[in-house]
């Protein structure tokens, strides 16, 4: 008979599990130690934080460029547009979808050009109901350029978590002022409401469980489209250059 397998952990009679675990831990920590106790002040915060120069000073259009590249790296389809062109871009991103579920407080203009059946979520649709819907359109709270991540808060723009999960096609609208460079800035923004339900999305659902080969699309939405609303190009000082962007807009609309 081996000596080790009958050694059951002891429990103290009449003591609750909580009290006992805490007492065990206090006993453990009372063992003599060579090193100092680490406190919150001892944590070296020398990494790039939310107030890092790179985060604050990088030109917004450059940050958006990084975001687009990182999103595309994970095979999300990015549509760059401006506020005036957004309705058309959103409708295009929704593609063939015949039914679209949206959270309760999306800006009205976003769905102006949508021709599919629009279901405004009132919290009543069951997962099975949502499964019968082709696509979901949401806004977001924050987008992280360096990691290609979009952060949804479960609110009037991000929607109840189930609606952005069950339909197979997710279209997210990102506004320029929501884009940050790094993770710390995003956590700072989220820290204003840490107890919300948050979902961070980086590309479509994926798995690498079979021979570590990345396969897109398992249980979450298999298609991810991002509509990025950028500032209208600033009118250039002379008329000739100012005429160019509008010509461009005509071509895309």
């Amino acid at each position, binding site marked *: 008979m081996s000596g080790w397998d009958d050694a059951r952990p002891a429990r103290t009679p009449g003591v609750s599990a909580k009290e006992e*675990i805490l007492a065990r*831990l206090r006993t453990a920590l009372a063992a003599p130690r060579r090193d100092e106790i680490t406190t*919150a002040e001892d944590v070296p915060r020398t990494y790039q934080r939310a107030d890092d120069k790179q985060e604050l000073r990088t030109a917004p259009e450059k940050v958006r460029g990084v975001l687009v590249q990182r999103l595309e790296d994970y095979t999300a389809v990015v549509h760059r547009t401006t506020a005036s062109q957004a309705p058309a871009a959103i409708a295009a991103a929704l593609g063939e979808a015949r039914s679209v579920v949206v959270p309760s407080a999306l800006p009205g203009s976003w769905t102006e050009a949508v021709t599919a059946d629009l279901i405004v979520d009132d919290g009543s649709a069951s*997962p099975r109901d949502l499964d019968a819907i082709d696509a979901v359109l949401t806004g977001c709270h924050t987008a992280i350029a360096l990691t290609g991540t979009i952060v949804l808060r479960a609110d009037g723009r991000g929607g109840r978590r189930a609606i952005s999960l069950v339909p197979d096609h997710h279209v997210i609208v990102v506004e320029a002022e929501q884009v940050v460079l790094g993770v710390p800035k995003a956590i700072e923004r989220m820290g204003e409401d840490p107890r919300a339900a948050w979902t961070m999305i980086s590309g479509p659902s994926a798995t690498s469980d079979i021979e570590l080969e990345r396969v897109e699309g398992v249980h979450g939405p298999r298609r991810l489209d991002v509509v990025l609303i950028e500032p209208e190009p600033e009118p250039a000082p002379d008329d000739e250059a100012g005429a160019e962007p509008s010509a461009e807009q005509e071509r895309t609309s």
Partner: protein
Amino acid sequence: MSTVDLGMPSVRPQHASPSSTLRGQRGFPAMAREELADPTLRGNLRRATSTIQSKRSAAVREVRDWQKLRSAGSALKWQVTDHLPEMLEQLEESVTAAGGVVHWARDADEAGDIVTRLVRERGANEVLKVKSMATQEINLNEVLAHAGIRAIESDLAELIVQLADDTPSHILVPAIHRNRAEIREIFLAAMPDLDPSITDEPSELAEAARRFLREKFLDIPGSVAISGANFAVAETGTMVVVESEGNGRMCLTLPRTLISVVGIEKIVPTFEDLEVFLQLLPRSSTGERMNPYTTMFTGVHEGDGPEEFHLVLLDNGRSAVLEDPEGRSALHCIRCSACLNVCPVYARTGGHAYGSTYPGPIGAILSPQMTGMSGSDDPSSTLPYASSLCGACYDVCPVKINIPEILVHLRAQDVDRRRETRGDFHSSWDLALQGASTLMSSPRAYDLAVRSAGPLTSLLGGTNIGRLPGALPLIPGWTDHRDLPKPGASFRSWWDQREKDRARGGSAPATDSTPQDDRSGLEEQS
């Protein structure tokens, strides 16, 4: 400071329940020998670990402040271990304030009882599961099965393992030891509705898993899901679950009741501290800038997600790890598995050889501390030797756990314990050295011994000397954990032969007993 607390001087840290999947059936050397004999397994592992290693290093190279992030991550984890009791109480308070219910489980048995009771009370006979190391460790699926409750693993790799009636072999990719053809066979055998024309393309196999689980996600009778958590924020009570496939989101969002089983060491102090760990974990783990999905929730959210949230805080041997100041940083592990992928030992033996839920270098320091090491017959006592101490694990660890140092520390503990319990350990060592000293002080005796070593060992089979019986002096302690190359001809006998050949007449053909030949023979087989 006194060790007496709350008037409970008898409360000592305890090792994990024997029912936990932390201690192997046999020691590492025996298990490793078996695993190494499987060439398919070795091929699968080599491919997988080298792919993921290069992905990881590319993802890490992108981050300029990586080393500073590691230092911050390490310090934060020290802060947590040094203040664990207070932080746990803070966590309980914040989870409760957010509408969650906190349960405390001293060991695997108690955690199993709590979860079983919760599931039964809700009348469920099936539950959905998100991949979680803590529930693996307490063998929850089996505990539930005994109670007539079927746990369905929703992570693709866990599903593969579950359908094959196998055990996980990697922290992150539990089915790393299976290739696509094997997975196709497993699916065909276990999914009755699957079209037999399915190929072994990973995309087709993933699609099969999607269809298999979709119905469960949309409508699970009893509506209970069980998860773990990657981080639990003491300050806010926020649980963070990091995943790829969306099965985690399904389980965390759709069912009515959510039960999370979380090790007491998973705490991070503040919400802000997530800025460190959400950078360290994905890049170290899957080698991605960020994993596809991260869910953060705090208690119960009205009108969104589960109506009930139960948090089960699990000790199961963690307090025993905490008790050793030299070994306690094993609790800092964030389960990224980077140390597995770089480990030359893991990459050859695979995870099953370790016999524990936690394999690889981190498992070799975590499992024996959680179970305790009770002498040389204990499989856990063999784990600290399952390493060449090359240090690669320490280099990649995102929270800078000094794994090699702890391995050496645990080896020393093991040796000390064996000396105490067997008593003879010291004297056999002394005897062996005495013998060596006599041998080496006589050139003739030494020459004879060395010359006869080659012919003598050629009586043993194989190219290397494996484990030798304990009766022989000196060598057995070494061969318990390592193979010894067989000695070829000694230098003196080779030289004698060479001189003889020369005297016989000029250009001596190289004989097959030259030391060089022996060495090239060794290289071939390694």
